[in-house]
């Protein structure tokens, strides 16, 4: 089951990378904005990975704590960075 988890995490990572890359073509942000988004995304992924392993080992409390202490701050970081630093790139066409 843990191998399946790694596989799913790989898919999520790939989709996340494409997502951030897509975002970079649509919005402009200063370097600290992008850093916050990337670190936030990694935190989200880390929390999901931790949570998955915790559920596999049967300690649901650990999984819940990981989502709360890692993934949730990650989501907040991404959202706040987007909210405060992102400006739309206006298409020239």
């Amino acid at each position, binding site marked *: *089951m*843990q191998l399946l988890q790694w596989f799913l995490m790989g898919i999520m*990572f*790939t989709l996340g*990378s*494409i997502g*951030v*890359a*897509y975002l*970079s*073509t649509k919005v402009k942000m200063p370097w600290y904005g992008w850093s916050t988004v*990337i670190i936030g995304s*990694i935190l989200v992924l880390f929390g999901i*990975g*931790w949570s998955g*392993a*915790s559920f*596999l*080992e*049967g*300690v*649901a*409390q*650990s999984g819940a*704590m*990981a989502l709360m202490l890692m993934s949730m701050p990650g989501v907040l970081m991404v959202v706040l960075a987007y909210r405060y630093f992102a400006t739309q790139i206006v298409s020239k066409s």
Partner: protein
Amino acid sequence: MTTKNISQNETANEQLEADLDNPERRTLLKRAAIGGGAVLAAGMGSYAAGKSSVQGVPDLSWPVVTDDFKSFPQRNTVLSYAISPQQMMRHPERNEQFGRLNKNNPNYNFQVQVPGYEFKPWDNSRPGFTQLDHALQHSSWFPPFSTELRLAGLGTPNSRFYSWDQSDVELEQYQFGSEKEASDAIRAAAKLYGAVRCGIARRDKRFDYDPIYDAGITTEMMNSLESQGVHKLRDYKQVAGAMQEAMKEFKVQDRELTWEHDFPFVPKSVIVLAVPMDYDNLATAPSRTSGATVGDGYTKMATLASSIAKFIKNLGFQAVACGNDLGSSVAYGIAAGLGEGGRNNQLLVPGYGPRVRICKVYTDFEFVEYDQAHTWGMTEFCKSCKKCGEACPSQAIDMSDDTHFYYDGEHSDQPGYAWGNHEGIKKFHTDAKKCFDYWLESDNDCGACAAACTFNEPDYWHHWFIMAINPYTPKFIHSLMAELHPAFGYGSTEDPAKVKKFWKTGEGMRVNETNRHAFGAVGKA
């Protein structure tokens, strides 16, 4: 190829060229590849660094000892004292002092409680102490009770599995191509026979018990006491009377043995082996349920160590297997690079914490690649984390902020109180008398300190991650990690939910599709 197909291909090619010409898509692909690749490379780098970190760093400073540090006489271990009626008569002041200071009972006596240990009746209203749990605990001790291992577990040397007999050593000595080849062969055999860790240390006299002590108790005597029902008596005067009769009948005579005159050879190497205890079972500690993985561990120690000793003898070299006897398993475990000394005085093994049992093989075979002590920052972590001490029902664990050379816990100011402590080495010093007293009182092997330990973790990546970053984290983070451990749901003791969980771990055993959730792992199959 038809005209229609050609037309379709041309359309697809045109679309691809249009996509590639599209600067926005090119940027997207480029950034996804470069960004994702960079993060992936950083992740793989971190993984490699983590793999390296969990190997530990050689600890050349270990052991830190005083100038007068020397071997510990085995007769002074608490277990040796507690099973010896003759030591009871020789040192009544030890019982009296412990009882007076800790139990408000100057007539306290370790020895008379031992025959009835783990024989109190079950209580079906108390999770972990029901007939089901009682049945499990006693079934785990059935092999040790049948094969002299019960006495070996209490430190009696030269028993059936841990025999000193060398008459079966092959005359021809096998020649290994290199020291590494020899060590690898020993490790391979150890793995085959159930070891989860194996290290080879040079024999160090300071860590051997010297002199070795045999309390003179025999399996026949213990069986005789049981057949008379002495183990069910709760009147200690009656127990003492029965013990005196048995001592006369079986002519019990304790003796001390020396390495120079009694041990069959001069050991050069000590092979240190660790067998795992079951995570979910130990998590129920302290209970009769968790006593099962302890009893089972004693059987596994004996089969493993005796098999390795026989393997060495078959190669033409002398070897003696041992469990708790002959020397300090924790010190040799550290010397063999298996782990570090914890606050609870147990060996903390990366990936297991204290959830292992240690056995050893003394041998004169020395053409091996020796291991050396390593550190993973675990003892350092223990300085900030006191979870084992907080979980200890008898307050036996050293709660000092740092390691030190002498026992300085409760009653350390009383003359002779630390008779059971091996002093002169920098470590934490527990009060083993309080610990064993709790065993006798609670009628189980406790194990609360091991269950509560922050390093007692199942085999999942996030626990290895913590292990890997531990050496690089500062002290205040250690304190935070220690506090988060219970907050994340780990390390609770005296928890009926853990007992319930353990009894569900058999689900899925018919197929068990991962082969992972076997003994020593965790969770349902």
